[in-house]
């Protein structure tokens, strides 16, 4: 199977700091991959590079065979890469329904944005997404009033509504209660079962064990280990990195 996402010799330097160092990552279509690594390993930088927020110093990123590293954020997103940020990043002043509507409307060409009737046509899709993330009963509430966990779900829902082929999740369970985390695990497994490709950044090993099959360990901008969760957990080098020995 050809990879949906591939980075080749990817390098990103910020002044003297090398955040991404000769990184070769390959994700297959339909895969659920987890990125782990200590703080400063370059996980979020990698997401910034993939989505076009940062431009690589060297190397290239291929999405479905196409080089994307010099494209602006919105064009990369339109090719089918959806991103959920680490800190919930929703439209606080808009209602839950409007939040999802913004994401859904992007599937339309710009001139159609001036037709009011399209809002009604997309209603079913919005309702389905709200059902997926269990926020149907809060649709008229301004997003500012949601709990932290609800905001996280809302953002995941919004990204899903924009119909991505590759979903990037940056610590989706950060700040969630145990109950909320469980629900999120169910949601991610469900999405993966629908053959959506997911690349997620995780900290919490229990959570990673619950969702991921294959884990990639980053350290100082490089891949130091890759394999299934069992092998990674017993890997000596990985343990040393987490204990700060390397």
């Amino acid at each position, binding site marked *: 199977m050809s990879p949906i996402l591939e980075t080749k010799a990817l390098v990103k330097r910020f002044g003297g700091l090398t955040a991404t160092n000769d990184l070769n990552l390959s994700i297959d279509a339909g895969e659920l991959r987890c990125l782990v690594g200590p703080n400063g390993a370059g996980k979020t930088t990698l997401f910034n590079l993939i989505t076009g927020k940062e431009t690589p110093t060297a190397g290239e990123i291929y999405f479905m065979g196409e080089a994307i590293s010099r494209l602006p954020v919105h064009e990369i997103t339109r090719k089918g890469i959806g991103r959920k940020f680490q800190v919930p990043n929703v439209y606080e002043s808009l209602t839950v329904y409007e939040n999802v*509507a913004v994401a859904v409307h992007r599937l339309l060409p710009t001139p159609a944005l001036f*037709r*009011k009737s399209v809002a009604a046509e997309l209603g079913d899709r919005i309702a389905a997404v709200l059902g997926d993330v269990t926020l149907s009963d809060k649709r008229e509430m*301004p997003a500012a009033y949601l709990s932290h966990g609800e905001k996280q779900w809302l953002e995941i829902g919004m990204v899903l509504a924009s119909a991505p082929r590759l979903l990037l999740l940056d610590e989706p369970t950060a700040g969630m209660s145990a109950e909320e985390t469980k629900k999120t695990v169910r949601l991610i497994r469900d999405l993966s079962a629908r053959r959506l490709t997911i690349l997620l950044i995780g900290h919490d090993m229990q959570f990673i064990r619950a969702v991921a099959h294959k884990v990639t360990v980053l350290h100082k901008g490089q891949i130091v280990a890759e394999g299934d969760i069992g092998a990674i957990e017993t890997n000596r080098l990985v343990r040393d990195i987490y204990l700060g020995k390397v």
Partner: protein
Amino acid sequence: MRSQPARLLFAAGVLVALALPPVAGKYYTELLSQALIFGIFAMSLDLLWGYAGVLNFGHAAYFGLGGYLVALLAREVQGFDQSYLGYALAVLLPVVLAGALGYFLFYSHVTGVYFTIITLVVTMIFQLIVSDWYWLGGMNGLLGVPGFALHGPSGLGWEFDSEAQVYYVLLVVSAICYLLCRYIVRSPFGLVMAATKDNQERTEFFGYDTAYLTTIMFMISAGLAGLSGALYAHFSGFVSPPLFGLNFSTDVIVWVAVGGRGTLVGAFVGAVLVNLLKAIISDFLAVLWLLIVGLFFIVTVFFFPDGIVGTLRRTPWRAPRPLPRAASMREGGV
């Protein structure tokens, strides 16, 4: 969903607006007519400032451009009716200018205060040009712009010359402009604009070219400002450099702030109220009136940061839906 009292208030407002000319008399009818033109102008700023979160401190540039175009056409082009062409160009040229500015500024990520400062410079450049170029009338401006008229084929047509007729024409034009703006802000485009104002980064990460969309909003806003400038030229019969002035650019911000930013109707409420107040107070306080109007502005903004209409919309008779004031990076000061 409008509540019953809000509907009644709106209906009462429309009735008062319709019944005014005979009651108000010539002087106040003219004043209100001018305030309606200013209301359209203020609404065009509200589109950009209230709905896209971009403060244009040189919005007078587009008003002045529309007005000067109409005045120039009236002087230079004879033998055919220039008013329709005048209106078309008065909308088109500001749209093109805004498109060019938006392209260079928004695509270079010039937003917030920096955008505001550049727009200020643009209008000052225009003011310099029209003040110093004799062909454009210099400090005297351009005189002799004909009044409002509707012309049909083969000489058919109406001229609107009484104060009341002019007032009603402007009332109709204002209503059309208002409905157009309301349609825009309630369309999916308006929603995406609101999203961009709230969180530009998130919107880009949904695949929207926010620079492009903001430029479109800027162009619509500029076109409407140009139209109001053209109306003003026909209404007052002359144009002069202060139309491009910093004072006028500031006035329109005050009208929007007093009436209520992001409300559309507030633009008219602010323009009518402030201009009425100016006229009444300057009648008996020849020197101090500006100070009083300034104080009124400060008090309004201090006690009603949402403006008059914005505050009314949050009063108990409406279903409560207080919006959190999310501070946006895009917004300029004031």
